């Protein structure tokens, strides 16, 4: 019996993989104040699921396409006529509502809806595990490839441009990575909680990190730990797995900040 034959092992592998990619990507979401942007992209995933089911294409492909389209559309229209947060609020909830309506018209899809909204990590198949590993690896590879450029453009788009980089292109790479992560993490925590998996481990890591790289690594580890902790809680108390993972991350955030405060108090 292989490792992937055990449903708990499959859940752990899929969840840890998604969290390892969400950590570093979440750091950029936090640094660039893109949390609403993450929401809009993640909510578009529900529409992507509906489109995949209607067109009978793989869910991963449909979600990747819709999340990518949403990211590009919001990025291009930012600052045109509405403030960025208004625009993102409109886009995120319109995408979510459209996805919910579309799902309601698809026979049988209604049964899966809760899984797509809140994740269904204990039910991931072998095929899902490979898909999630692929999505997470793609997101991480994009970040690793463009790391210096992304970081410079985050600090100052002008500085990046003066040094021969294209800040708009770096931004596009970040959105593509986000679309891959959304497609990968949909089964793990669900569309409504993906932003939590991005933002909370990164925020927890901030309290204990002196450099961007250390923060990215810490966020990845905290995210992975939260997945395992959440799964453990789910196993022990029969709590829903996705929300338990998010709560474990929130607990890590509280602990990290407490540790930082104590350390400052002891030093000072």
């Amino acid at each position, binding site marked *: 019996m292989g490792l992937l034959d055990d449903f708990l092992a499959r859940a752990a592998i899929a969840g840890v993989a998604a969290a390892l990619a969400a950590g570093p990507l979440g750091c950029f979401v936090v640094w660039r104040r893109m949390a609403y942007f993450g929401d809009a992209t993640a909510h578009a995933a529900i529409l992507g699921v509906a489109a995949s089911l209607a067109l009978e294409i793989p869910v991963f492909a449909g979600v990747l396409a819709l999340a990518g389209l949403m990211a590009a559309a919001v990025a291009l229209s930012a600052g045109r006529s509405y403030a960025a947060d208004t625009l993102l609020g409109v886009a995120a909830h319109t995408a979510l509502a459209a996805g919910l309506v579309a799902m309601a018209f698809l026979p049988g899809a209604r049964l899966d809806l809760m899984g797509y909204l809140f994740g269904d990590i204990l039910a991931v198949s072998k095929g899902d595990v490979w898909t999630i590993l692929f999505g997470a690896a793609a997101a991480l590879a994009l970040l690793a490839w463009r790391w210096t450029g992304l970081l410079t453009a985050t*600090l100052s*788009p002008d500085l990046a441009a003066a040094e021969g980089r294209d800040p708009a292109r770096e931004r596009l790479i970040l959105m593509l990575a986000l679309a891959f992560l959304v497609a990968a993490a949909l089964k793990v925590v669900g569309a409504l909680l993906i932003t939590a998996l991005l933002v909370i481990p990164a925020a927890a890591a901030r309290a204990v990190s002196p450099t961007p790289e250390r923060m990215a690594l810490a966020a990845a580890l905290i995210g992975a730990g939260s997945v395992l902790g959440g799964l453990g809680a789910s196993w022990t108390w029969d709590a829903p797995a996705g929300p338990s993972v998010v709560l474990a991350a929130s607990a890590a955030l509280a602990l990290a900040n407490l540790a930082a405060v104590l350390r400052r108090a002891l030093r000072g």
Partner: protein
Amino acid sequence: MSAAAADPAAAAVPAARAEAPPLVEATGVSIRYDGVEVLRDVTLSLRPGEIVTLVGPNGSGKTSLARALAGALKPASGRVRRRPGLRLGYVPQSLALDRTLPMTVDRFLALAGERDRAVREAALERTGAPGLGARQLSELSGGQFQRALLAHALLRRPELLVLDEPTTGLDQPGASAFYRLVAELRDELGCAVLMVSHDLHVVMAASDRVICLNGHVCCEGTPTVVAAAPEYRALFGFGTGGALALYRHDHDHAHDHDHDPDHGHGPHRHDHDHDHDHGPQGRGAGQG
């Protein structure tokens, strides 16, 4: 104190350099934000090794022009040509340093592409901020921050150094020291320098040219080197070491007529209409 900074002859562009192809050439550049023109029909070129100071009041388009020359802003019309492969060091006014982004000075310097820690430390030492490598960028004082930004730019081994209001927030001795440092670095590296400053009258003494901008190029000239005159000593205090000079504006069009409908200069503001032919006494009286 550097002799080059104090001696106008040494600071002037050698004839051979003036003949060299320009590092950056702007031709008929106009810049608009949301349809509002901030800069109209600017033509200028920067040659190897020269120091050009760009002055202008707030909203005059000087930062926009510097960004366009550095490649960070696309002009609405006209063109900016950078010499192919030009190595550019850019010191922005500030960084979008979100508190959530931890960044040590050393890590920031490494972003310039320098892998050798010793070289990064040497750059910090050269810009007068030794031993700051382990500090967070967000904890630095204004002067330290500018020196860290300058060290980052130096690590690019620049042929052109663009500094956007680097002395904002520094007092006069601080600004003098910074100008002196930039003049020395120019002599060491042979790089050209484009210095953006909001101070219309007191400029870096080592400037080969001063360009006054207010929506368009108002006037262009050389600074008056004043290091020796006792009245300037009194004005600028001691210890500025001749790094500062006055710039006398010589506008060939009358800005105090900008209510004249025939003036036709567009929507730019002319709020630097004050005492263009002031002498040193005038300024001294104003300050003292």
